[in-house]
């Protein structure tokens, strides 16, 4: 694969749960060695989009490609790390044992069952397990900073930057904009009426993207009048 080639390609994707539409006509690309931050209100479809990228969900309409393959095939050919939060860990498993499921080596020296761990410890266990594999080509994390203390957050940032610098494409979603700020190359704002992709330099023309700038951009997008975008036939794809 050529360096910085398009690795994740999302084309005109619409997601639905039965009749309820989550988002519509979403289009964006992500290159190797790039990171994408997904920002959105509750129910905007962040988790749905992330699960589509790892092949757990199929789009109702449109096409998702990872390294040129459909996501489910891509997980067989590429090395993918996906973690959707502490709640997804089985509660009765011992933490030490779960930690070995990543690279084979224990990632947390705690013999308690997962249900006995604190929220932050569970989150750290899940993250360390999925990120312990080498090399990783696609990292997809749903609210990864949730419950982490300062030291663990620092470890996560350093690990993600290191993996990204080695060529992994990183997709992270978070409500905590200060964690995403400055880390991502592109930001995808998912809202009920619009999805918008913005590069870091479009948000901050000078200097790094800050949490304040992200919040400001998100608020502006949220406050945009909905009427013109809700007309039938009107596309609201993410613009790059």
């Amino acid at each position, binding site marked *: 694969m050529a360096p910085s080639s398009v690795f994740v390609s999302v084309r005109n994707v619409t997601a639905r*749960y039965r009749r309820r539409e989550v988002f519509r006509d979403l289009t964006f690309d992500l290159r190797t060695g790039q990171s994408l931050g997904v920002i959105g209100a509750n129910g905007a479809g962040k*988790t*749905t989009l992330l*699960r589509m990228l*790892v*092949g*757990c*969900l*199929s789009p109702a309409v449109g096409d998702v490609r990872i390294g040129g393959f459909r996501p*489910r095939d891509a*997980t*067989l*050919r590429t*090395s*993918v*790390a*996906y*973690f*959707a*939060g502490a*709640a*997804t*860990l*089985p509660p*009765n*498993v*011992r933490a030490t*044992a*779960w930690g*070995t*499921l*990543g690279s084979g080596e224990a990632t947390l020296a705690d013999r308690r069952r997962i249900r006995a761990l604190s929220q932050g410890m569970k989150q750290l266990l899940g993250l360390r*397990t*999925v990120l312990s594999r080498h090399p990783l080509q696609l990292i997809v994390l749903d609210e990864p900073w949730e419950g982490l203390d300062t030291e663990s957050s620092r470890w996560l940032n350093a690990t993600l930057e290191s993996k990204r610098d080695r060529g992994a494409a990183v997709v992270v979603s978070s409500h905590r904009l200060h964690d995403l700020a400055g880390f991502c190359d592109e930001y995808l704002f998912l809202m009920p009426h619009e999805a918008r992709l913005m590069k870091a330099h479009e948000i901050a023309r000078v200097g790094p993207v800050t949490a304040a700038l992200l919040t400001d951009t998100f608020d502006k997008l949220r406050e945009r009048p909905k009427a013109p975008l809700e007309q039938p036939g009107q596309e609201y794809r993410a613009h790059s």
Partner: protein
Amino acid sequence: MRRWWYLAWFFFVAPPMPLLMIGAFAVATVVAIVSVIIDPARASSALTPVLLLQLFACASGFDVPARRGHYDLLLTHGEPRRRVIVAHWGASAAPGLLCWLLIAAVRYAISNGSERTLLLNVGTVTAMILVSTIPWAITVRLPRFSGAIGWLLTAVTLSLARPDMVAVQAGAPIHSATEWLVTACAVLVYPLLLVGRDLHGRDLLVVVPGVMFAIAAVSIASWSIDRRDIPLEAAQ
């Protein structure tokens, strides 16, 4: 082989059944072994608790834990979904199968290998196949134990409505197509009838519908899971 090893390790770490079930299997096996040692002629009845536990152990359910995200690591680890499904069935059935083989080995050992054990004949093997596959297939998209509870309800309801079915003797001479059908249905609903019975020739025909049903149920359940999306419960 390495991939299969990973799947086995995953389900060893995160078994599809509650840990209490493993303990129950251990107790049932010890009791069965003691019972076989005391009275070798009662080997068939000693196996009954293990078969009942196997019914519940195999009704482990795949969809519910998958939608809670418990299998996310496995599903994105590079394993084909079909292989994951096979491994899930294997992990659900393994404890019961191991207990059965252990009891059969003890039975064989105390007979000094002089007689063929009653626990490895066609009837017992068929019973074990039925209780290891059908509850798994029924429960694959339902909450844990649903298939076993449904099966037991069917068995109890039928035994009240048609007591003659429970009285059917697998291996008894069959004179008509109707008798064959009733016996085949009885075997399917009450697989315990088969334990310890050695079937030969035409008698084998009574287990064919049950085994065919088990194969079809497992195939349909696997196909359904293979094609199915797995959303997170919390994200819908």
